């Protein structure tokens, strides 16, 4: 290990409840912005959310209709693979369970796809039964573009690269098809409690 830099602490904060912190993570009080590309700015009157792929009938909602769907307020802890975690984040959005009421599909996997070209893959069982939302408010305000607004996927039980920013749809797939970071060596599932950061973990 490198020698210790005298007096260096970084941004980390002491953890009141260590049982909430997955292995290898640090508690962060800010909300870091990570991005693989420029922030997209899709006008809301051009925005829609589409569920397609291995479904009987694709379904989509333009923005105004999306906001009229039954929504939930949730408070969750989030964990980034770059090792920061943030507790008690407040979101408002539509549960993926609610969206899936509108489709018929046997597919076991899905790919979330986004403005700007980002993708990430998930097993269907990891976005159902109250595990995932398409969120459009953070901390009581419309979701800021740099944090994924107008809407992002929110899958807090997995590393936050799965909570795809600027999400525009979910494509149901028969097979698990690695998305952007998964293709470059990140783990297919990404469970922070099993520290599944990279393929092979």
């Amino acid at each position, binding site marked *: 290990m490198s020698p210790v830099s005298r007096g260096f602490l970084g941004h980390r904060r002491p953890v009141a409840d260590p049982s909430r912190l997955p292995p290898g993570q640090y508690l962060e009080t800010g909300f870091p912005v990570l*991005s693989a590309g420029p922030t997209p700015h899709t006008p809301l009157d051009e925005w829609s959310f589409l569920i397609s792929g291995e479904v009987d009938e694709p379904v989509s909602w333009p923005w105004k209709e999306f906001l009229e769907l039954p929504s939930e307020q949730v408070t969750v802890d989030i964990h980034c693979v*770059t090792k920061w975690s943030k507790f008690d984040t407040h979101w408002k959005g539509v549960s993926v369970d609610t969206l899936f009421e509108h489709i018929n599909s046997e597919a076991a996997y899905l790919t979330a796809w986004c403005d700007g070209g980002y993708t990430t893959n998930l097993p269907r069982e990891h976005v159902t039964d109250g595990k995932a939302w398409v969120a459009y408010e953070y901390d009581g305000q419309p979701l800021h573009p740099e944090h994924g607004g107008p809407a992002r996927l929110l899958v807090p039980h997995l590393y936050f690269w799965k909570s795809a920013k600027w999400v525009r749809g979910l494509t149901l797939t028969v097979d698990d098809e690695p998305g952007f970071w998964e293709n470059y060596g*990140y783990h297919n599932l990404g469970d922070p409690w099993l520290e599944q950061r*990279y393929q092979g973990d």
Partner: protein
Amino acid sequence: MEPLDGNAIAGDLFEHFGNEMTTATGACATCGTVSVIAELTVYMRAPGAVVRCRHCGNVVIVLVHIAGAIRVNTDRFQLAAAELA
């Protein structure tokens, strides 16, 4: 979120290739624009560094730190063979 350029990943590229790479030339696999690595657009704040063509914005290079090792994927950036010697 202001992006940087290839200078920002020079150290990691040197570690991976064993050579100074910021002056290495290559072509974007999407639009064909030829550029030196120093002049590509780099997004550093990610689970890795994502390098994009300054002309068309498509990804050309992805650099990740996995288990303490640096992996560099240049599949979408056609480096001249001489650059890798």
